[in-house]
């Protein structure tokens, strides 16, 4: 089974079980954890960075560290979200508590590093720990007679839909000077909050505070943060002709290519990175022995999808800084 005769720690995915491949040299995984060695071996390679998504490889790292970073990103890095809603008037059909919950889940654009945690809810909101917003909207009949024939709610009524863009920021204290208008507010303008009909009215005061994902998922700075192991595929027996195309179909698009050699069509591995490690290959008796699928156990493909308040690279750095500060404060306590 040991078809990979190399130094990489890997598991081989066979039809009914997963087997460990014995590497020719000791690897990060069976070594004792050692900071000096870690510094030497550990590598980070950024692969993709677009909009709010970052994909990078962490190579030569223990799984416990990758998991610690992931956990920190999801539940320890803070962000701002609406926590308290003062309902002055709500005559729409959506209940107060449901409305307040919906508002809480709206992602806000605001740099949490510029705010403090609200220590005490009995004190009034101040410029350092709270962002205040206002949602004041009323639905009425549209007086514009040119739209009379229409049956669309948007034409016959004014404000039939309440969107997140209707939330207006109310600066407290020096916030007006500290932040520009574009720096604070809902990230997406088109989140539907409620539908209304003439006579319905909303008059709300919203208070956003800083907290982390442990408190409530709405405070998590990421949509998701996850890692997976790098897959590697090896074709051990030549696969030709019709079988080559069948083999290609068994894997994710772009993983297997078909190369022409003379009048022969030969299957080759193009890029195994984005393979989903599906087990389709085992449906074909003639193909299942031609391919060995494996995963490299110290090569983590880490993906961070930010909600939008902070860039993914900032979130990653924040997570590590948080862990570091946590350790330093504990050390401080132990030494005193």
């Amino acid at each position, binding site marked *: 089974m040991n078809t990979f005769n190399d130094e990489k720690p890997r598991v081989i995915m066979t039809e009914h079980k997963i087997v460990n491949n014995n590497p020719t040299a000791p690897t990060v995984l069976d070594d004792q954890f050692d900071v000096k060695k870690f510094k030497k071996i550990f590598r980070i390679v950024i692969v993709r960075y677009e909009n709010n998504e970052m994909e990078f490889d962490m190579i030569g790292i223990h799984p416990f560290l990758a998991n610690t970073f992931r956990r920190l990103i999801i539940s320890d890095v803070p962000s701002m979200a609406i926590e308290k809603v003062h309902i002055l008037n709500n005559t729409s059909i959506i209940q107060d508590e449901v409305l307040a919950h919906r508002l809480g889940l709206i992602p806000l654009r605001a740099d949490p590093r510029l705010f403090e945690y609200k220590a005490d809810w009995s004190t009034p909101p101040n410029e350092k720990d709270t962002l205040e917003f206002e949602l004041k909207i009323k639905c009425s009949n549209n007086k514009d007679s040119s739209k009379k024939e229409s049956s669309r709610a948007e034409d016959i009524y004014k404000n039939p839909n309440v969107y997140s863009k209707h939330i207006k920021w109310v600066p407290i204290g020096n916030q007006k000077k500290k932040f520009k208008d574009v720096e604070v507010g809902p990230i997406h303008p088109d989140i539907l909050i409620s539908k209304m009909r003439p006579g319905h009215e909303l008059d709300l005061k919203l208070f956003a505070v800083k907290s982390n994902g442990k408190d409530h998922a709405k405070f998590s700075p990421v949509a998701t943060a996850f890692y997976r192991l790098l897959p590697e595929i090896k074709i051990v027996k030549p696969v030709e002709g019709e079988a080559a195309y069948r083999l290609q179909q068994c894997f994710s698009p772009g993983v297997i290519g078909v190369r022409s050699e003379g009048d022969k069509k030969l299957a080759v591995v193009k890029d195994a990175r984005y393979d989903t490690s599906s087990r389709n290959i085992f449906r074909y008796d003639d193909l299942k022995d031609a391919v060995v699928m494996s995963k490299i156990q110290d090569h983590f493909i880490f993906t961070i999808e930010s909600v939008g308040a902070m860039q993914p690279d900032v979130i990653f750095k924040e997570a590590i800084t948080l*862990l570091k500060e946590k350790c330093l404060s504990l050390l401080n306590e132990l030494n005193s």
Partner: protein
Amino acid sequence: MPVAQLAGSGTTNEASKTFVFQSEGHTLGNALRCIISNYPDVQFCGYTVPHPAENKMHFRIQMYNGKAIDALKRGLEDLVKVCDITLEKFDAEFQSFTENHTVQN
């Protein structure tokens, strides 16, 4: 705030101790455990979150020789070093990445 305090058992025995971390969980517990259990003087190292509704983590260290608290301190120091190395490597890579690619925001 996180307070590391000593639980009842073995006040006279410096080699084996259980530390209680307030408002910490698996994130710190597992990371520390993995680092500390590899030290040559450590006989046993483990952690538990005794109850999910209680926001605390118990951390047990038993030593062949030396003090348990020293292993804990060393573990925390090593974790700080790991954080520094990761930050350093990430910054270097991010810089070279942004120099070669245009990052879309």
